[in-house]
């Protein structure tokens, strides 16, 4: 059997035993509905998971912290996970108004950003999330997606 034949046989087996589940293709198609035109994206600037050194036994990593940045706005988010539910605590610089957390599986949740720039939203699903800021003057900034 040539390499190509062997590879094709392996591919056939993988198709049979480990093809992408329907649900995976379905959520990939549904991703398109999350498109948001004409809204500024706050890009991920820093992820504490990426910069942590090697932890050893007994040490804990502490909550994961992400920083996002758009032209005039920065958003820091701290992620806590308990029993597969997620709580986000955030602090916003450069904008005031509402903070909304969107997931791909559940209804979005909105809270008012307090006068110090803080917001906190709990009972969110694990999986992809993003934060959207809606300023009082109507402008919007959305973070790129992250998985809690």
């Amino acid at each position: 059997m040539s390499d190509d034949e062997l590879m094709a046989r392996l591919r056939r087996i993988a198709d049979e035993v480990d093809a992408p589940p329907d649900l995976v293709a379905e959520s990939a198609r549904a991703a398109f509905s999350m498109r948001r035109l004409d809204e500024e994206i706050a890009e991920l600037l820093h992820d504490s998971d990426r910069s942590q050194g090697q932890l050893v036994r007994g040490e804990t990593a502490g909550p994961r912290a992400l920083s996002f940045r758009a032209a005039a706005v920065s958003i820091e988010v701290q992620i806590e996970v308990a029993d597969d539910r997620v709580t986000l605590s955030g602090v916003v610089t450069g904008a005031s108004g509402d903070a909304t957390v969107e997931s791909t599986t559940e209804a979005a949740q909105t809270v008012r950003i307090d006068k110090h720039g803080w917001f906190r939203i709990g009972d969110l699903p694990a999986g992809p999330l993003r934060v959207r800021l809606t300023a009082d003057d109507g402008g919007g900034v959305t973070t790129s997606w992250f998985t809690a």
Partner: protein
Amino acid sequence: MTVAVEALPCAEWSIAKGIPLDVEPGTLLEAARQGDQAAWDALVARFTGLVWSIARSYRLGDADAHDAVQMTWLRLVENLDRISDPERLAAWLATTARRECLQLLRKARRNRIDAGASALDDLADPGAPIDADLLLDERDRALWRAVASVSERCQRLLRVLMASPPPAYKEVAAALGMSVGTIGPTRQRCLDRLRQVVRADVRLASQLGGDVL
């Protein structure tokens, strides 16, 4: 069937799978930019096999593999207007999928650390093994088990190469952070290793000898 299928160009492969996609990915991408959901669905149909195979190659279990695939497509939605070279879309998806997989592996590691696992547990495979018992053909089962005995690096490469439709080497390279030139020689070495595993095992050799060696 084997050689013929391997040689099919992507579009014909899609037709063989029942999806009439003789349209270039660049054209689909442009239509998706204009808001065309059907064009998006066609992109998903064409590349989900690749992205899924990448997630599996990093040994993500079902839930994390699902998240990795979904995140990859969400990133494409985010960057739809910023992909400068539509010809490189598949490689872009592969690079993005790799990044998402590495992020999910970091998360899995942190969760184990937070749960008080030791540094040794830290190295454990987070993914679930694929159930080879689903395979009806005994020789397929044996071959699938043999794959699990080659090095992790080889398993990873082979799993990406198993994507349907067959990925181009530049996509495989992007998925694994390897240079394109090393894919061919590494593939050859890994398939040779697979044959050695079969040869070294009397039972496997009697089951698969004529097929694989």
